[in-house]
């Protein structure tokens, strides 16, 4: 239970569906996320991804097991504000998480709830908007922005609480490719420059190729865990019905045909560099 990490110990979460039926969303999961990591979490619909995200900041409590954030138990309702201050959340639909029709005011919502004073709030807004590259749009109305920009406002709103961890529950699923790319680049920057731990949940493999560690959830259990390279090349990955990103498929198909291409290539960028070196 060291500080500076999120720990899930034997976590099980069941939902009641109907009178006597129970659906097991997460089944005995043990997982540690260390400060500074970029973790990708992938899985099919209904694999328990969102449940896992909501368990971490105490929006829901586990049926069995414990969740610790920096050593604080999420079941301890007195510390819930402390936990949520450390864990910023961004959800799937950007429209549904914006509170105010002015970007600046929306970003201020978190710090104001924490009881920060005006100067402090302003400082936090400035920082959060600058870190997401949204400072030019600070007086805009969010509903006039593009999906990607809205989602960045949501990230800024989470950042304004100065969290250690940022958990994003399928933030890219409603964005166009350009917006998606921008968002992922922004997250990489936040992780590298400010040392914010990022946990990115997605069902697009392309989104998580940059992660330090990839966790694959299947039917409420951790199915695979490792670097993206390891996960994509694993036999089990294919047999569970997952598809690696296009580039990884291309590399493996080329290798099957006898072209000895570096098998560590997982992004278009790497592929381009490799080809240019030939």
């Amino acid at each position: 239970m060291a500080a500076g990490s999120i720990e899930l110990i034997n976590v099980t979460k069941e939902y009641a569906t109907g009178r006597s039926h129970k659906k097991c969303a997460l089944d005995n999961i043990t997982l540690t996320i260390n400060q500074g990591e970029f973790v990708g979490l992938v899985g099919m619909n209904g694999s328990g991804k969102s449940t896992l995200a909501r368990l971490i900041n105490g929006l829901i409590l586990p049926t069995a097991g414990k969740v610790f954030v920096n050593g604080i138990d999420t079941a301890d309702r007195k510390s819930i504000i402390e936990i949520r201050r450390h864990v910023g959340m961004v959800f799937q639909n950007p429209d549904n998480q914006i509170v105010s029709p002015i970007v600046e005011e929306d970003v201020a919502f978190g710090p104001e709830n924490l009881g920060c004073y005006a100067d402090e709030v302003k400082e936090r807004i400035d920082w959060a908007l600058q870190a997401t590259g949204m400072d030019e749009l600070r007086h805009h109305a969010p509903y006039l922005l593009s999906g990607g920009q809205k989602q960045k406002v949501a990230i800024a709103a989470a950042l304004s609480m100065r969290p250690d961890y940022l958990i994003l529950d399928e933030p890219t699923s409603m964005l166009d490719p350009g917006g998606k790319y921008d968002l992922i680049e922004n997250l990489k920057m936040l992780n590298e420059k400010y040392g914010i731990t990022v946990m990115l949940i997605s069902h697009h493999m392309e989104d998580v190729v940059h992660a330090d560690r990839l966790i694959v959830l299947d039917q409420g259990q951790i199915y695979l865990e490792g670097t993206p390279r390891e996960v994509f090349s694993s036999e089990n990955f294919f047999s569970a019905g997952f598809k690696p990103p296009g580039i990884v498929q291309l590399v493996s198909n080329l290798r099957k045909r006898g072209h000895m291409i570096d098998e560590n290539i997982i992004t278009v960028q790497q592929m381009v560099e490799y080809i240019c070196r030939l």
Partner: protein
Amino acid sequence: MKGLKLGQFVRGNSIIHQLDPRTKIIVCLVVIFSILINYKWYVILLNMSLIAAVIILSRIEPAKILRSLRKLRYLFLLTFIFQSILTSGEPLFHVGSVYVTREGVSLGVSTIFRLMILYLCSTLLTMTTSPLKLASGIESLFAPLRRLRIPVHQFSMLISAALRFIPTIIEEAQILTRAQRSRGAQFNSPSVIVRIKSMAAVLIPLLAASLQRADDLAAAMESRCYTGGSNQIRISKLRFGKKDKLALGLVSLVFLVFVFCI
């Protein structure tokens, strides 16, 4: 559809935008009460000129506001017709056994103006005040009601969230209408029954989606450390300055003179 939505906050930096939300709420209430108590022509004129002044000062395009009035034209028309035929008095002319009276016509005209004033004054309030500020304003003004165990904060948050989601839900309704029309829903069928049935195909998914939104918003707000309690920091950010005192003083003086003395 990314145009201006009814009563939606319009960003601006005019003197009206800068006023404290409490000032605007009070003035709005004064206008509403004055027009409900007393509907003589000079009160109507006073209110209309006040509203005109606010529109000019707020630098909102008057055309936009006038266009939104058009939506109420049937209400105005019906009000006028009923007032003019159902009020007893000196008959002007009659169609069959229905008499139109002089008193009725003048009452009809003044009622239209009163409705217009009620509408414009609340629209201007929400157009020039951001929902969160409006919520803080309401909360601060009605804080004494908390003694009576009225959940003032919850009500103000409710209003603020409702205003915030108007454009989102209108947009969704338009998408749903188009989707249902493309599947053959008859929104312009001559039969009322068919039209109502078609509307159900829009309203039910809209309601379901709104519940989903409410759920999402609750999760997002909770994640940002919202605990449902009243927020002193946000309220203390409101500043009741010189401009507010001046505006409030001026308005209350004029109204006292007009409504009670004449």
